[in-house]
Each structure stands twice: as structure tokens, then as C-alpha cells.
């Protein structure tokens, strides 16, 4: 998240109470971009304000019934305008930038929520949304419940953190691994694991040999990301990106699922660290 975006979200937070109602104005119509953001809005009981969501907003089931404005990085100008929203909500993932600027010119506010990965990001984002809708208590409740779940996970984590890798399908068959400063990295850490690719930031394509050389204890993959045959011996869990990386109210569940897998993976692995089967 850039400094400008943080500033913008702060401004948005400051501006909202000034525009009146502690609970958002009843005619507030929102478009939510990002699965975690959408999920939180529903969890806060404000799902009724949404008039549109992006393709990653697939939970809860009622979100699927809303008009979808497409992929978050290629939002359609007129498609969003047609929904006549008062504001567009996202945590820094929406684009293209020019479309957002033009939406603003059409009187559609952009509300940028804190988008850092990790628990703190989740907390800040949930609180911002709570403030936005005047539902601070509900927001706090969501955060507390996630915190409790995370605490439970933390108590069970082994002393030595399992070495894990998070693979993702990136476009045309290319498999990328998650590095530092990613939600995937945050997920691994919360689940008591250690990301073997800490030397780079963001998502990068990695070779099979680079993978083998890292001797991971466990592999997490999403979607079509293919774990190579060379890693056959390493326990692999395939999961849903939107669930794992949503960092919304279901964060606790996601972390707990990953943690359980990591623990089982280490227990299964009887000492020898070669990924070659």
C-alpha cells in the first residue's frame, strides 16, 4: 500500500463522519472490490448496501447474486457508473487507475481501505469498515473472534516452524511463488509456518530446482498451480485462493486449516528433508 493510498483512506475516514450520519446514509449504494472487503461488509450486516461486486467476491452466497463488475484490475467505467453507486470500496487492489479517477469525476467516491497483509491489516480494514457504517462494535466482535481463533492456532504450533511454500497459478500456466510482503506470506506466518522464499517481495516465477533446493516441508497451491513431479514426496494442500487470501472474517478458519495441514506435514515427514521421492 502506497503512502498516497493510506492518505486517501485516512481522508475518507475523516470525511465520512463529516458528511453526517454515524450510520451511513440510508441511500448509500456501494460497489465492493475484493473478496475480503465484501465478506466483511456482509458480516457487519451491511450487505444490503452493496449494488455490485468484483469477481473475487464469492462469499457469502448472497454476494454471488449481486451484479459483478468483472476483474478487479480491469474495472469497466460505464459498467460501474450504471450501477449508480455513491462510492467504490477497495483495499488498493482496484484498477485501472485512470478509470478510478474518471469515476471520481462522475461523483463516485473512492474509499481505499487499509490493504496491508497480515492480521494488523485485517484489523485496520475491519475497523475502517466498522467506522464507515457506524458499526464499530460489530467490527470489534469480528476482530476478537478471529483473534481468539488465531490464538488457539498459535498455542498448537510446534517450536520449529515448518518450511512452507505458497504456489499460485499466474496467468498462462506460469506458476509463481509468494515472497515477502504478500498475503500468502502472512498466512503462512499466522499458521506457524515459515515462508522459504523470503528473499524477494511479491510473487515471482520460480524454477523446480529452486523449489527443491529450498527443501520445503509443505506446499500450498491454489487453482491450477501445478506442483511439479519432483515435489511429489512433499505433502501438498490445494485450496481456494479467495478463502485463504481473503483476510476477512474467515481469516481464523483459513489460518486454522493451513496450520493443521502444516503440523500434519511435519509429523509425516520423518526427518529426511529431501523433496525427491
Amino acid at each position, binding site marked *: 500500500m502506497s503512502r498516497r493510498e493510506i492518505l486517501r483512506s485516512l481522508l475518507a475516514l475523516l470525511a465520512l463522519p463529516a458528511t453526517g450520519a454515524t450510520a451511513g446514509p440510508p441511500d448509500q449504494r456501494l460497489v465492493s472490490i475484493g473478496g475480503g472487503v465484501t465478506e466483511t461488509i456482509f458480516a457487519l450486516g451491511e450487505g444490503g448496501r452493496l449494488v455490485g461486486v468484483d469477481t473475487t467476491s464469492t462469499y457469502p452466497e448472497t454476494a454471488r447474486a449481486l451484479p459483478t463488475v468483472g476483474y478487479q484490475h480491469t474495472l*469497466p467505467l460505464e459498467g460501474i*457508473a450504471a450501477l449508480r453507486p455513491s462510492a467504490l470500496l477497495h483495499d488498493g487492489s482496484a484498477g485501472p487507475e485512470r478509470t478510478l479517477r*474518471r469515476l471520481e469525476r462522475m461523483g463516485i467516491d473512492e474509499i481505499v481501505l487499509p490493504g496491508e497483509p497480515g492480521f494488523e491489516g485485517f484489523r485496520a480494514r475491519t475497523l475502517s469498515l466498522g467506522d464507515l457504517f457506524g458499526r464499530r462494535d460489530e467490527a470489534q466482535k469480528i476482530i476478537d473472534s478471529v483473534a481468539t481463533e488465531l490464538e488457539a492456532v498459535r498455542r498448537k504450533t510446534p517450536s520449529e516452524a515448518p518450511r512452507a511454500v505458497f504456489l499460485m497459478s499466474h496467468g498462462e500456466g506460469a506458476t509463481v511463488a509468494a515472497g515477502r510482503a504478500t498475503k500468502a506470506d502472512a498466512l503462512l506466518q499466522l499458521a506457524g509456518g515459515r515462508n522459504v522464499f523470503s528473499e524477494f517481495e511479491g510473487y515471482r516465477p520460480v524454477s523446480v530446482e529452486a523449489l527443491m533446493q529450498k527443501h520445503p516441508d509443505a506446499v500450498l497451491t491454489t487453482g491450477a498451480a501445478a506442483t511439479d513431479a519432483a515435489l511429489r514426496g512433499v505433502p501438498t494442500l490445494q485450496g481456494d485462493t479467495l478463502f485463504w487470501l481473503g483476510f476477512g472474517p474467515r481469516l481464523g478458519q483459513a489460518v486454522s486449516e493451513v496450520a493443521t495441514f502444516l503440523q500434519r506435514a511435519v509429523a509425516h515427514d520423518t526427518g529426511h528433508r529431501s523433496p525427491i521421492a
Partner: protein
Amino acid sequence: MSAVLERAGLAVEGQAPTGSEHPGSRQTRARYVTLALIPALGLVMIIGLLTGAVATSPRDLLVLLPGAGGDEWTRYVLLEVRLPRVVLGALVGAALGASGAALQGLFRNPLADPGLIGVAAGAAFAAVAVIVLGGTVLAPLVGWLGMAALPVAAFLGGLVTTLLVYRLASHQGQTAVATLLLAGIAINAIAGAGTGLLVYMADDQQLRTLTFWNMGSLAQAEWASLAVGAGLIALAFLVLPLAARGLNGMMLGENVARHLGFSVHRLKLLVIVMAALAVGSAVALSGIIGFVGLVVPHILRMAIGPDHRYLLPASALGGALLLVMADAFARVVVAPAELPIGLLTALVGGPFFLWLLLRMRGRLG
């Protein structure tokens, strides 16, 4: 005196040329079809203006009149969102259609589509280079050219690939279909690999900007960026008709064209530079939109014959018409989301290309 002509049996004998056309000539039809395409394009553009996720009625078009009042919101949607988009669609479609027709005439080959032979890919590679390296290696260029950096780079990329394909595929003034397509595959692969390399180097923000290059999109239509590209495309439109007669001569081969008094060398240079200019600017504005340059000239050639004096303007009009129509469709079919327009043209153009290839199979050799 007229003695010579009489001797040659070719004197007109003072009789006025008959008004009715001789069978076998399609000039009258070509003229009418080309003229008819103008109001047809106008109509499709109006349909495009009235189509979209936001509900509008024909009466809303009144906001286009200067000094007209009306609802500010509708005004913005029509003037700032749809109109630039419809104009962009028309410009890009016209650029692709006309350059397709011109390249096919030059290569003497109906399969010479700017997308298939790699011109668009070369332009896209250069444009992506400007986006990714604009802040570092190419910073001086971007600083110097400003907003024009993207279209200029795309033009140069398109120019280099067109020259390369021409060198590779033509032998003694003939381009074999197979060689042309193979050269196109190679150029596409190289340019694609180069683009892939740049994408690999791109940061997250640049990566998001790049997504629209692959699929092609008119969604970035804005008056400011439109102005630069439109100027370059307009230049190509003004110059390309100068090649029409020469391209007609080229239909009989390079040597006959030369004997008909054309400078084949100058003709080649003119067509290649202008086609690269049009395609490069189009790619800079909207990414790679394939098959328009293949489908449109081909259909028009069947309808009005290959006379480039009509085929070039008709292909420009037809390309504009097709793309504006396709974009209107792309904007409403999954509203409020949008289909990428390049996907749509490939969906229609791909099978058309296969059909064309099948028909030509006997002559591929």
C-alpha cells in the same frame, strides 16, 4: 492526328462514352457500396452511443448539441465515456481495416493481416517496453516525447516488424502464403517472448497496466490520449490513398507495376510506413485487436472487387463499423462487466481465417 488511333483501332470515334457500365466492371458498385458505408457507420456510431450499461434514450443525444442543457450525469456518460469510446473504436477499426487492405495489396496476399504477420505484436512489444522501462532505460525517450512516446514507440515497433516480415517473406516480388505465415509465426513468437520478458520485469502496478495489451480493449478511451493517436492515424489515412493506384498495378506483379510507370520501391516504402503508423497507433491506443484487418478487406473485396481506390476507404469504413458494433456488443453482453474486445474479434475472426485457409489450401503449394 487521329490516324494513328484509327490505325490502332482504338479511336473513340467521337462517340460519347456510354453511361452504362460494361459487365465485368464493378466500379459503380464499388462507388455505391463505399458511399453507403458512410451513413451505415454513422448509424452504428449512434447505436454505439446509445448502447451501454447506463440506460439512455435517443432523446439524450440532444446533449451532444452545443449549448444544450440536460442532465449533467447523462451528459458526462455520453460525452466523456461513450463518445470517446465510439470514436476510438471507429479510429482503431478504420486503421486496422485500411492497413490490412494496403498490406494485402502490397504482399499480394489476402492473408496479410497486421495481427497474423506480427506487425501488431511488434508494436505491442515496443509499447510494453515504454510502459515497463519508461522510468529507467527509456526515460529520456519518454521525457522527450511525453504522451506521444507510446504511439511513436508502437509505430517504430510495427515498422521494424513489417520490414522484417517483408524481407523474410518476399522473393522477387512474390510472397508465398506459407512463408508469409511462417514468418508471421516467428515474428509473433519473438515479439511475444520479448513482451513476456518485459512483463517478467514489470512491477505489480505496471503489470496491471499491461493486462489490457494482451486482450485488446477500448476501455481506456479518453479525449486526451485519443488526440495524439488520432493525429497519427489521420496522417496515415491522408497518405495511404496515394498508394491506391500503385497497389492496383501491383495486382499484376511487381514488374508489370513497374512497366505501368509506378516506382515499386517508393510504393513499398509508402505502404509499409503508413501501415505501421496506423497499426502502431491503433495498438498504442487499444492493445492488440486481431482479425479486423483480415476479415473486413476480404469481405469487401468479395463485394466490390479489389480496386484499391475503393477498397482502402471502404475497408477503413468497414473496419470502423465492425469494431464499433463489436464494442457495443462487448459492453452489454455481460453488463455491468465487459468482454475484452480482442477476445470477441478473435472469436469471430479465428474461424473466418480457418475458412479462408481451407479455401486457399489448393493454392498453398
